[in-house]
């Protein structure tokens, strides 16, 4: 079943995939056992001539143990899933690793607007606004500060295993780090109007070198400054609270 998953190109993607795998094994096993028991009972205990059903009410504790012991197993598996899922949620949604590139994202009916702060890192000075295409370097933490100009949208890139709603009146930060250069589709995954299905963006992940070139094309004067900034962000590394 998990063979249907699209290729995964983010640093936390493998965590989500392995969690999915864990849940599918656990839940799949429970599913097969339960359905198997149901099917076995249906086949074994069909009416026979002169047969009589056992009078078992399942009211005594001894009988109920047949139900309660499997339930204990369910509880144990539940707790295991809770704990593991929490760790992934924290990694993706609660931690805020220092970012190499910060981009403002404004969603609108029916498109995406990405604002780059320019070499000084400050919004409102040498901003660069790109519609539709988000260009980022591979191997660096990208922070998106998400907002919306009209209704609720949702930023979704299947290959990043990342999804987050963009809500008007709120600024919601998310982060990701892409591992593979390439072109990926950004989809809106929250119903946002009659052209919701066509609200496609492009995520262009470049090698660090290509990204530097892209930066120097857009801010020719201070290309070297950005390059240093990007480099320092990379060496300080992600994973720590920002």
């Amino acid at each position, binding site marked *: 079943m998990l063979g249907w998953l699209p290729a995964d190109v983010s640093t936390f993607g493998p965590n989500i995939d392995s969690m999915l795998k864990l849940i599918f094994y656990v839940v799949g096993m429970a599913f097969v056992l339960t359905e198997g028991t149901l099917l076995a009972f249906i086949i074994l205990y*069909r009416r026979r001539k002169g047969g009589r*059903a056992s009078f078992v009410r399942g009211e005594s504790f001894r009988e109920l143990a047949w*139900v309660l012991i499997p339930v204990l197993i369910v509880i144990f598996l539940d707790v295991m899933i809770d704990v593991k899922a929490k760790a992934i949620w924290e990694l993706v949604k609660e931690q805020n690793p220092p970012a190499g590139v910060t981009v403002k994202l404004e969603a609108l009916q029916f498109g995406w607007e990405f604002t780059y702060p320019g070499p000084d890192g400050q919004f409102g000075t040498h901003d660069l606004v790109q519609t539709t295409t988000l260009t980022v370097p591979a191997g660096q933490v990208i922070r998106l500060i998400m907002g919306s100009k009209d209704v609720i949208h949702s930023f979704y890139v299947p290959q990043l295993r990342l999804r987050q709603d963009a809500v008007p*009146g709120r600024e919601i930060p998310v982060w990701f780090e892409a591992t593979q250069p390439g072109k990926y589709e950004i989809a809106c995954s929250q119903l946002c109007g009659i052209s919701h299905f*066509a609200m496609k963006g492009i995520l262009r992940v470049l090698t660090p070198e290509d990204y530097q070139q892209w930066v120097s094309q857009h801010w020719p004067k201070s290309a070297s400054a950005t390059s240093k900034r990007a480099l320092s962000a990379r060496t300080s590394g992600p994973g720590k609270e920002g």
Partner: protein
Amino acid sequence: MAETKPEAAHHGEAHAAPTNFWWKYIFSVDHKVIGKQYLFLGLFMGFIGVGLSFIFRWQLAWPGTAVPGWGKVTAPQYYELVTMHGTIMVFFVAMPILLGAFGNFVVPLMVGARDMAFPRLNMSSFWTVFVASVILLISFFVPNGASRAGWTNYVPLSDAPRYTAGVYWGGNLWLIAVATDFASVLMGGINILTTAIAMRAPGMTIWRMPLLVWQEMVASVLFMLSVGPLIVGVVMLLLDRMVGTGFFLPEKGADPLLWQHLFWFFGHPEVYVVAVPGLGIIQEILPVFGRKPIFGYRTLVWSAIAAGILSFMVWAHHMFLSGMDPKLAAPFSVTTIAISIPFAVMLFAMIATLWRAQITFATPMLFALGALANFILGGVTGIPLGSDGTDIYLHDTYFVIAHFHNTLVPTVVIAGFAGIYYWFPKMFGRMMNDALGKVHFVFTWIGFNMVFIPLFLIGIGGGQRRIFMSSVYTYYKPLQPLHVIATIGLLIILTGQIPFLINFFGSMIWGKLAGDNPWHANTLEWATSSPPPHENFEVIPTVVRGPYDYSVPGMEQDWAPQAGEPGVAAARA
């Protein structure tokens, strides 16, 4: 209602049998007629709701081609269709059939009452939902058509016509219809609760009540406690749209997440409002066709109550990615996963009921077993969605669609059909044809799984829901054949409904006469004639035992009605 002797209460409530057509069949106060009215309304709306899904499913499988009987689907039409499909199926099919039809027809008979506690309130609750349905259907024909904002009606999309390309009256009528529908269900719930609490026959202690009565009570309480916030939200949204207030508009200082909290605070208990009575139907049918007591009667009651209580603490799992504080996700994830505990108890107890049973596969039992099998799938697939870490990926994909259809269709549609085949003899005095019923089951059940198993895979492949043209995305391409399989599944389901319609209406006229108790069942509705007379019982029966005494050792017969007799041996507590 405070009489200590229920018998006295019944006489106090007695009303003469109407003779005029209008009072007998249209504005009837008889719970049996009202139950049938609900059933017809629910089935009618159900066929409309499924019909809508035929149109958009065709578009999903073969995008851009003309749908037979409809023509090409446009994007605005597509969003109108999916919105109205969800709204109709949840609010105008599930609730009218499970609470309205079965709650009305079966509960008073099961507890041994002459009618519902408040017969006129009962009539008005039906006519209120009837008006609500008419309002909703009218919204298809107003300028710019019906609502396109999704059945969850998220703001600000649903707040202003400019966001949905000019839908004004469609959105207003949606809100009015939904609020009216809720008012109706509230009236119905009060009636079911009061009837079950105050109008039970002598000897019908609460621990002798059939499980369906318990489940209808749990559902009514859940609905009452959860619907308030959403009715408030609906009124505020209506004011936003029609008067220009700004309860949900960010530019006027509002937070759009408020609507989501109000909607899902109601929305999640609502799922159990329909699921729990659906399970109740299955729990009635398993012992009858297994000739064996239900396993863990009290445990089933307590787990339904526990699931009901938990359902008030899980609503924000619909909102993990909505932008609410991410720290809220973990506690809501834990409560959500914990819901699996009471449901696991219920499922295991239902399966244990079949252990060393004597199962016969009459049509009601086939539907009940099919519903049980799929409800298990619906349950386990809730885990990767309720777990916050994996919901990041699966949220808003077809995995969600497949999951909730596997919880709601088994409980509403498949268990609903089980209930129809099971109580039809009591409703109309005639049997439905078993062979046609089995054909109906095979088509419906296989078709249903053919629709939704592929949708799980689409979701895993990253295919998000509410996409009019999947060809926009390249990652969607390998998933497209799965949509074709799903649509063929729907065509199989639709074909399977033809024998049902023939059977349902034909059996009313030509069906074999049923007799009082064709299934040899124990509960009180089978202790009176089929259909029951006006005021249900010639003499109110005295209940001598619990509802599931099948195959009691030492008894000659394998059944022992609650009202006494066939079993012969001494009554048990």
